[in-house]
């Protein structure tokens, strides 16, 4: 009797099993397809940078070619690319640290406390990123002139902070909302001050969120162009503007452009690999949804 009870159910379930196998197949299909979609342009970019000048755009494409680092050597030798690169790394890195220092605690407060008119405050914060940079670059220029921040690293760091602050506050608020308050309660009972509870218990639990916004902030600042263009002229010039230097008024140096673009991706890859494991280490060692 028992066997009869289970038989039809089981066979039906086996169907579901195959369906779940199908999910696995679809999963891999989607991931591989998207990998291709992502990789192809990147491959093209990198391969352009490794081709000798003149071969960059030939059709049919030279799928196979002898890679050369000529363009990179040019890039490093012929210009101040390295200096600008280092300068950008410094400014962007510092801005990410600063924006986290400012934004994460604020997000925590927004998440844990009853803020009067919370919704309006949040929208206000968000409103800082609602206008196209184009529309606000002039006032910023004026402020920077007045405060003697023009063409200074400090100024650019602050600028990058202002670009990313709303993002950090919003995203981190959402993450803090998901962290059970009992953890802090336990910490506070353990004699931790509110601050210690925040730093030692809540922050570690919010790691994936923090590292995610750190990466995103880094990228946003790293590829920022307009403010860098308008608010600097000599001393604090970010590397983004360099990429432009290969777009001449009557010709584009494709290989160099590609080399510079590729070089600009490198720090992000390095950063990503460095924090990769934190992106996934959640509250509970991550959900793994199998089947």
């Amino acid at each position, binding site marked *: 009797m028992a066997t009869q009870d289970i038989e039809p159910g089981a066979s039906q379930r086996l169907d579901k099993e195959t369906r779940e196998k199908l999910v696995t197949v679809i999963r891999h299909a989607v991931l591989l397809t998207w990998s291709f979609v*992502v*990789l192809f*342009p*990147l491959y093209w*970019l990198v391969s352009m940078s490794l081709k000798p000048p003149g071969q960059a*755009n030939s*059709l*049919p*494409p030279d799928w196979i070619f002898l890679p050369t680092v000529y363009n990179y050597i040019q890039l490093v030798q012929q210009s101040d690319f390295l200096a600008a690169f280092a300068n950008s790394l410094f400014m962007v890195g510092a801005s990410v640290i600063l924006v986290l*220092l*400012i934004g994460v605690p604020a997000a925590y407060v927004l998440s844990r406390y009853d803020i009067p008119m919370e*919704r309006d405050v*949040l*929208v*206000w914060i*968000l*409103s*800082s*990123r*609602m*206008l*196209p940079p*184009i*529309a*606000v670059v*002039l006032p910023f220029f004026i*402020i920077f002139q007045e405060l003697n921040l023009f063409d200074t690293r400090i100024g650019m760091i*602050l600028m990058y902070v202002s670009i990313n*602050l*709303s993002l950090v506050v*919003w*995203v981190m608020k*959402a*993450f803090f*909302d*998901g962290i059970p308050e009992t953890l802090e309660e336990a910490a506070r009972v353990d004699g931790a001050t*509110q*601050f210690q509870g925040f730093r030692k218990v809540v922050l570690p639990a919010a790691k*994936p*969120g923090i590292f995610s916004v750190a990466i*995103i902030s880094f*990228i946003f600042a790293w*590829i920022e162009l307009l403010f860098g263009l308008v608010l600097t002229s000599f001393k604090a010039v970010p590397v983004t503007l360099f*990429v*432009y230097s290969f*777009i001449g008024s009557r010709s584009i140096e494709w290989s160099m452009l*590609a080399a510079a*673009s590729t070089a*600009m991706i490198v720090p*992000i890859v390095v950063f*990503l690999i460095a924090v990769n494991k934190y*992106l996934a*280490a*959640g509250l*509970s060692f*991550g*959900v*793994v*949804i*199998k089947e």
Partner: protein
Amino acid sequence: MSTPTKTETTNDTALGSLRDVWNDYLPYWFVAPMVLVMVMITFFPGAYDLYLSLIAEPTLNVFQAEFVGLRNFRTAFTRGGAFHSFVITITVVVSALFLETLLGFVLAAFVAGVDSSRAKSFYRVLFILPMAVAPVSLATIGRIMLNTEIGVIPYVINTLTPFAAPNFLSDIPLLTVILLDTWNWTPFMFIIFYAGLSSVPDTLVEASRVDGAPLWRRYVHVIIPYMKPVVFVATLIRLIDLFRTFGVVYGLTNGGPGTATQLVSINIYEQMFINNQMGVAAAIAVVYLVFVIAIANIVIAKVGFEGVWD
């Protein structure tokens, strides 16, 4: 029994009281820098744009300014093409947001479900990369890759598929812009969703598996609701960011052909830096700001605070 000792109240050395000031007003300290920065980056630019939009010619001296009422606003919506660019922007925003959210979530969920942790790491890094390509590189190299005559993408489509490659930039410019943005910014959604997924406690997922929920229902009923704040915030931020897309589109199509991809941001740019109509540009910006704030408020009211933050 000894009397209770409370370090907090009995310790009145300078350091102690400093600590008290720090701890007692902690929330204030926590938000103060943020508020400071926010005041600086919201009020002045907003006021400046508003001022510019109301005067005839840009001048920094308020007393010299010739106020012209709403003339700039009228110009913006007559020959300024503001309305058209609003429509274009909304089209791009809605479709790109849809694609990016969907794709971002599917990818995040799929990657989270991959067994091998090395493969997982690989996908995680790879899928974030498109975001790291500077807009100028993307636009310039995108243009050449999409070029009908010498671009590799039409070449590949023409040689490897039975279809003829469309003219990305002239026949389907809007779609091209949307797809390129999707390529570029799906990583944003991916990374936040991925982090959000890893904050869902294992036991919940286990409970739902035992409850017999099939995969997708587990997502719909248990996982997504749990990470709803994260999903909501990521989507809202992307929405806001999409509203100010500029660099890539400008580099790719310059807003054309004609004004087919004339986003509001491009329109503002052209009014300000090409046409030198700074008042008109500011007028568009002001209307746009109000518009986006309204959208954000609606979205937050309709989706956000019901269920996410109640």
